């Protein structure tokens, strides 16, 4: 299990255990964490699972794929460390990962 911290825009923190193999998006949906819509269910076509990766973790994630780069254009308030949660596979190495949500999806 990997401990993941999701922080809503208003600062509310949700610390949950996510099974390796799941995506960061599924981890949020399975635990009913608000702020991640994931309308398309993980097809990387809607851009509504946008999160910001905390500085310490940025270098530890694989870089965005071409499709993620294309789809993240749908998201609002995109920053260099913005990611789509459906494209991040949880591994044991990501135990302790902290992500923040944008104001809206």
């Amino acid at each position: 299990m990997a401990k993941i911290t999701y922080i809503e825009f208003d600062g509310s923190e949700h610390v949950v255990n996510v099974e390796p193999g799941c995506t960061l998006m599924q981890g949020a949906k399975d635990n009913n964490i608000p702020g991640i819509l994931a309308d398309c269910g993980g097809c990387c076509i809607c851009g509504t699972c946008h999160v910001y990766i905390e500085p310490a973790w940025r270098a530890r994630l694989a870089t965005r794929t071409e499709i993620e780069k294309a789809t993240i254009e749908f998201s609002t308030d995109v920053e260099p460390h913005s990611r789509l949660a459906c494209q991040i596979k949880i591994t044991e190495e990501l135990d302790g990962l902290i992500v923040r949500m944008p104001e809206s999806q």
Partner: protein
Amino acid sequence: MNAVNDSGCHWDPYDPKYFSNPYPAWARLREEAPLYYNKQYDFYAVSRYEDVERGLFDRDTFISGRGGILEIIKQNVPIPPGVFIFEDPPLHTMHRSLLTRVFTPKKMNALEPQIRAFCAKALDPLVEGGRFNFIDDLGAEMPLRVIGMLLGIPEEDLKSVQARVNENLRTEPGKAGDYSDHSFVGEGYEEYLDWRVKNPSDDLMTELLNVEFTDETGTNRKLTRDEILIFINIIAGAGNETTNRLIGWTGKVLAEHPDQRRQIYENRALIPQAIEELLRFEPPGPSVGRYVAKDTEFHGQKVPAGSAILCLVGSANRDERKFVNGETFDIHRARVPHLTFGYGFHSCLGNALARIEGRIALDELLNRFPEWDVDLDNAYLSSTSTVRGWETLPAYTPKAGKASVHAAAPVAEAAAAPGGESWKMTLKTPMGPQDMVMSITRDGNSFSGRIESPMGSENVTGGKIDGDTLSWTMEVTKPAKIKLSFEVKVDGDNMTGNAKLGMFGKAALTGHRV
């Protein structure tokens, strides 16, 4: 093994038999011919989820630049730059990223109050009577008005825009569409564009006029007039047709699953997952075509470069390998992404808009009609190469009951007026046989009169008599504004011939004197 259809399963995208219910044929394809080859039309088809996903995602092998519709690929139709749905990188990347910025979920969700108002305007007058039509009253109205609002097309012009889109898309049953003279440029949108140049607003048209980007040559520029017209043409077409079909399927499928409809009625929080399940179960665009740019393989069988391949999204969405009880409609099923909006780089730009429109339409329907039945005897599916859905779908509340007098009721036989003659005729149209009665009076080599049909009463114009041949024209406004040109041969008390139905091809006609 190289013959991929040796098991004997068959599917024909143009055969109305499959069109009305393709699912049993697709289920067989998934099991017996996961790579299917259709000899008659020379195309391949994949039907399993993982194969469809690969077909949509691997854009180096399965390219879009030759079109995404089987006929366009086969007929090698030239596609001008700007038709982003039929482009490959680098042009596609550039055009698409421009439009993603315009169609963000946030912007689309902000349209909610207007979408609700359009639904209310369409549905409120029908509440008392308890009879409504999912397509005519809502599906053909609300999405059109939303896209009109986005593009800044005046309300009074919307219907003619819709008619043009319909003519562009529709095909004759049983046949491949003819795209040889297809125009991708948005003819008829020029005046709105020119007006917007002078009168900027906060709409999509203005945004397209102002957007700056770096093109494939590295030049920083704005979109050209032609590019904008093509974009608008595609967006207007997509916005009109697809959500319309989603609304139709919502009406049909929920009428057949009243228990689930009641659950949604009582708990509106179920609406988003209900719409996802409707999108999975009956996708408005059930197949997507690609051109095979290099030799590839599915299940150990070769697909040569130069082939056309169809990705059967409607089949993938019911693949048991991915969806437990895939052939069952279940709004509570575990969430597995359907492929209705595609997958990868060409996935639907309008998916956020379609979702918000579908959700609001269902909510507003339930607010007014908690229960309904559909009148399938008087409904019909439209036939196009790209979308599958209801062209008209009458419905009624339990209290109102089925309409007793309906458009499809037989026309009463009318006796001929003195000095005139009367003919009862049947026209085999794409929407089924239509009965009509023509009453005419001859005057030398010409004749005049009227035709009574379920579509209304229309004047016969340009009636000509040439020996035993009669020819005339007639204009109808329903189901679309088209001009019908008739030519028949009279043999005693019988007539046979045909009518050209505007852009919709020819229909056979038979008749007898009454």
